[in-house]
């Protein structure tokens, strides 16, 4: 392995795509278009088409919002938190995870707008001097959300771009097709001088340091959208750490879901190895155990509180009309991941891929169960609603969000280096000093 080989191997992924890529992007774009159609239909007809029924006035869209913000989190964990811990294995997977973060936050950010009755007034959430002579209520968790999500999107996008800049310069100097002027513009004239590297390295470290508390704060703020309300099932002090662990859990599962096919299609097996997936699996197991513990603590707190409403909500969650979803969630998020204790399972990539999809389903259901089952069972039995029935509009918009996310991801991996060229080179010895036989370091 040499600098030149790394350069060639990774930039090879930018070559003209094959029929599989075109087929894939056609499929996911069609999903996105279905979602767009459903959103336009809803905007024209009214929010009533979403199937909201009193008192369940938050449902699938808010589930999607929390799900996508959660997916974003493992990207920052891998790119920033593991960077702080000098976990060298992150190098191979960090770029794809960072890109996933940005696209997931972009997707998530659409849902609070989709959820609005008059989505064209979403900018009323932004505090600026206006003709309505009103300021936003800074005591509202929804305004905190605005600040948390926009900060997260901005910082993640800058972090991704900062890491990409030298790699785009490598593409600019190597890829000789219609994209070269675009790479030239996006590389901003990167030259790779010592002075540039000095500032680049320093800032990358600071971004990692800033992103670490940010990632924890963002999902904490998202959890406070619920925990600040007095609704049984939501009003809990464990929500912030519980949501952060859940977010990382679902995000790692999504990283595995995305990387396994990407590695195979781009023939990156020598860069993204079984060892990397095993480490991701360990991360998934750890966060699964935290999530499982949080589930149990929730029940304990409800029992120990002596509060009949709290106890009623949790009893209803497991044995009421949402029992099927709750137990599926519990199976996908807590029971199935226990298989990861076995090395044979962690290193079986097909099994990991299947498990990662189950975890994605389980984590989506977790948010749905928390939101819908709690709302359907509040303080007043006269309010208790029947089983919530999502409509085709909610289904189509959810499908559309997956379509949008995968479209952005597929476009990214075909046009930008999906593995960091610079960081891969950094993990090996200098070209002239290295012994060719041993220059490729053992995974750490």
């Amino acid at each position, binding site marked *: 392995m040499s600098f030149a080989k790394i350069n060639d191997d990774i930039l090879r992924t930018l070559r003209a795509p094959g029929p599989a890529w075109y087929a894939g992007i056609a499929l996911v774009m069609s999903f996105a278009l279905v979602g767009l159609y459903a959103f336009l239909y809803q905007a024209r007809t009214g929010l009533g088409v979403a199937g909201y029924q009193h008192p369940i006035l938050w449902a699938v869209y808010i589930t999607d919002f929390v799900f996508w913000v959660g997916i974003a989190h493992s990207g920052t964990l891998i790119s920033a938190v593991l960077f702080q811990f000098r976990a060298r294995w992150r190098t191979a997977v960090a770029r794809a995870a960072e890109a996933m973060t940005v696209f997931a936050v972009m997707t998530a950010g659409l849902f609070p707008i989709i959820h609005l009755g008059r989505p064209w007034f979403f900018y009323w959430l932004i505090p600026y001097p206006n003709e309505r002579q009103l300021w936003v209520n800074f005591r509202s968790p929804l305004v905190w959300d605005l600040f948390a999500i926009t900060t997260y999107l901005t910082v993640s996008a800058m972090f991704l771009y900062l890491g990409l800049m030298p790699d785009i310069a490598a593409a600019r100097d190597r890829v000789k097709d219609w994209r070269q002027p675009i790479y030239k513009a996006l590389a901003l004239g990167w030259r790779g001088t010592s002075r540039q*590297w000095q500032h680049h390295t320093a800032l990358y470290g600071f*971004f990692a340091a800033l992103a670490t508390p940010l990632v924890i*704060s963002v999902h904490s703020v998202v959890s406070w959208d619920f925990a600040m309300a007095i609704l049984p099932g939501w009003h809990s002090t464990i929500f912030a750490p519980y949501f952060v662990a859940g977010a990382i859990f679902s995000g790692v599962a999504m990283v595995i879901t995305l990387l396994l096919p990407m590695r195979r299609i781009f023939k990156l097996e020598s860069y993204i190895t079984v060892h990397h997936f095993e480490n991701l699996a360990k991360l998934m197991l750890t966060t699964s155990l935290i999530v499982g513990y949080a589930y149990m603590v929730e029940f304990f707190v409800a029992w120990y509180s002596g509060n009949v409403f709290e106890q009623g909500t949790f009893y209803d969650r497991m044995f009421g009309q949402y029992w099927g979803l709750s137990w599926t969630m519990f199976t996908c998020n807590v029971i199935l991941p226990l298989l990861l204790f076995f090395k044979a399972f962690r290193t079986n990539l097909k099994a990991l891929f299947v498990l990662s999809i189950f975890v994605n389903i389980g984590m989506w259901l977790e948010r749905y169960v928390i939101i819908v089952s709690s709302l359907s069972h509040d303080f007043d039995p006269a309010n208790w609603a029947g089983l919530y029935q999502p409509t085709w509009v909610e289904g189509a918009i959810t499908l559309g969000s997956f379509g949008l996310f995968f479209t952005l991801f597929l476009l990214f991996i075909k046009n930008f280096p999906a593995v960091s060229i610079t960081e891969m080179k950094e993990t090996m010895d200098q070209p002239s000093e290295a012994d060719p036989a041993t220059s490729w370091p053992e995974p750490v």
Partner: protein
Amino acid sequence: MAETTEILGIFDGGAKAAAGARAILDDGLGEVVAYSPVPDHALDQALHVTISPVRLFVLIGGLLGCATGFIFPIYTVLDWPLITGGKPLISIPPFVVIAFELTILFGAIGGMASFLWMAGVPRLTGSPAPDDRFTNDKMGINVTCRPADADAVRTSLARCGAEEVKG
């Protein structure tokens, strides 16, 4: 301004390039700009690269963000006093969330802006680096020197292991 010439040495490793840079600087033969595809500590030491001042701008941005995060919500509640939920107008705990997020946002923007400025980008015109291989697998030492010293520079670079010397 005295007439100068540019000489480029191309190396296949950071240690050799660093030796080349050190030799030029120690002999006072000219000014050196080093290129490499990855950050290289040997080159940094040879060129006496110090700690980047972006840290200062991250700090300034962070402090500004924190101050904004408190001052702005306090200004808005005083500008249009509207008591909600029986809470005091100036409720510090919720404003901590805003201040926390803006600390990070402004710190990151401050760092990014200072990086762009100090790294001399964007630089949209002209050739970025004197050789395409500097983003691939080669290190470069570009020496700006007086024409009279050009031969000494070439010899020095070649002696330190330059694969190729141009100019």
